[in-house]
């Protein structure tokens, strides 16, 4: 008998919970909603910033959808999104929008510390990654096979790398394909002949903390977070929020929040470089 009573009680609770959830979502539907679409590089960061923004502004919901920088531009232009996201500078014909920089993204080429090669130019890196140069001797180094470390498809670091060196992923002759930055650093640490690329923030930190790697300068500019922040480093790009005209209301508040020092730790957690202030 008591079993029946218990189960009735449980069903009662479940019903109450469902009703509460229903009421809750009804309340949210009335709330203010901010839609962001665009770059899949920025989307994870925007999602995190959105969560904190929601916490600070009860009743506000931030909806983030990825689909590429170009979608961000188009959606912001036609009003499908309140705020667009683009992981590049605006093109000439996109100047009808206003770009609000929230962070910088930069990658650095890393070699093992014991590798005597201290710099490479773009053509040499392209030749290494397409398999035309396969031994460090051809670049003034020791007689050692080159191990090419590439990123897995879909990563923003891969996208930035390919874009800078004007390569397509199928052209690359990789020996090791990695997922995250840490795996890249460990792979280079374990192989004197390896070459890889990772987020500059991570590499600079690990190099400073005794990992036997060294970051290569690009076109004579040292690979440092400071140079990425200043926009001097060639292998870097701005992460922008886009608005049609001067932002107002909720969009304005969100963009200001995303540019404030309050999100610096979120930016760093995604291996991006916070703004100079």
């Amino acid at each position, binding site marked *: 008998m008591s079993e029946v009573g218990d189960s009735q009680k449980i069903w009662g609770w479940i019903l109450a919970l469902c009703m509460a959830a229903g009421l809750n979502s009804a309340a949210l539907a009335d709330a203010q909603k901010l839609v962001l679409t665009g770059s*899949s590089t920025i989307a994870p960061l925007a999602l995190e910033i959105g969560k904190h923004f929601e916490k600070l502004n009860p009743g506000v919901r931030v909806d983030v959808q*990825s*689909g590429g920088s170009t979608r961000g531009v188009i959606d912001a232009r036609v009003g499908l999104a309140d705020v667009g996201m683009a992981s590049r500078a605006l093109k000439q014909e996109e100047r009808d929008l206003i770009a609000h920089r929230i962070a910088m993204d930069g990658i650095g080429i890393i070699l093992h510390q014991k590798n005597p090669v201290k710099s490479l130019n773009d053509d040499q890196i392209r030749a290494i990654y397409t398999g035309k140069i396969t031994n460090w001797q051809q670049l003034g180094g020791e007689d*050692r*096979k080159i*191990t090419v470390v590439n990123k*897995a*498809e*879909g*990563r923003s670091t891969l996208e930035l790398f390919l874009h800078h060196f004007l390569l397509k*992923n*199928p052209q690359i002759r*990789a*020996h*090791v*394909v*990695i*997922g995250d930055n840490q*795996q890249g650093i*460990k*792979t280079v*640490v*374990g*192989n004197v*002949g*390896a070459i890889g690329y990772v987020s500059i923030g991570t590499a600079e930190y690990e190099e400073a903390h005794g990992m036997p790697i060294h970051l290569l300068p690009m076109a004579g500019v040292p690979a440092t977070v400071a140079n990425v922040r200043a926009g001097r480093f060639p292998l870097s790009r701005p992460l922008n929020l886009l608005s049609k005209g001067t932002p107002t209301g909720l969009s304005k508040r969100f963009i200001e929040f995303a540019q404030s020092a309050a999100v610096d730790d979120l930016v760093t957690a995604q291996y991006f470089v916070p703004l100079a202030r």
Partner: protein
Amino acid sequence: MLARVTGGIALAVAVLLGLVLMLLVRESWPVLVGGGWTRFFVGDGWFPSSGQFNLLAMLWATLAASLGALLIAVPLGVLSAVFSRFYSPGWLIMPLRRVMVLLAGIPSVVYGLWGLTVLVPLIAGWEPPGASLLSAILILALMILPTIALTSEAALAAVATSNLQGAAALGLSRKGIVLGVALPAARVGILSGALLATMRTLGETMAVLMVAGNVVQTPASLFDPVRVLTANIALEMPYATGDHRAALFASGVLLMLIVTVLAWLAGCVGARSNA
């Protein structure tokens, strides 16, 4: 009461499995229907951004890594079980078993980390890049060795004492007893242990991801870097959208099919031992 609870839990597990399968099929549906299932086995290779979803190279890599690991781990595991059952001095049996149980319980990511920082550099010094089919095989073999040793030992322990004593009474040497009586009588148990281990090698993700190099290619030598199906899902799922995502779910279906066939085989083996 107990019958109802256990029955309910068993039912829930079955329903859960059904739901997982349904999710896999539903998520992979667009690419299964849209392009036909043949696109997973023809084409230039795995280039999801240009709509090429040939899984064959990764399927071969998965099977090669599993087979290689079994070729190493099964003989070693069975030998270790034979040693602890028939040759080991009494005081060594328990410590040996403890070590095996401990080894079987180490999380795979720890094996992976060890592989990445010790094994891969070692192989790289010999034949770069180091991250290769060979390192995947060695790590997997190390992971399944304790499982095989423990299941083989249990199978050997289950051989009726009267059989062993009878063989001894007939004047068989210890070697003769092991090879002629104990191992044949325990073969079904050993085989089902090996099948269990095979399923683990097929499903292992993190350790292989860290040491195998993850280049999508059909392995031509032990030193070639390869990418297995599970590693592919783990590497690309966080950033996959549309057809790419659906193709990853489809490779999950493929893995599930392979494991189901193995489980069915294991069931057949078990049924034969009961007959």
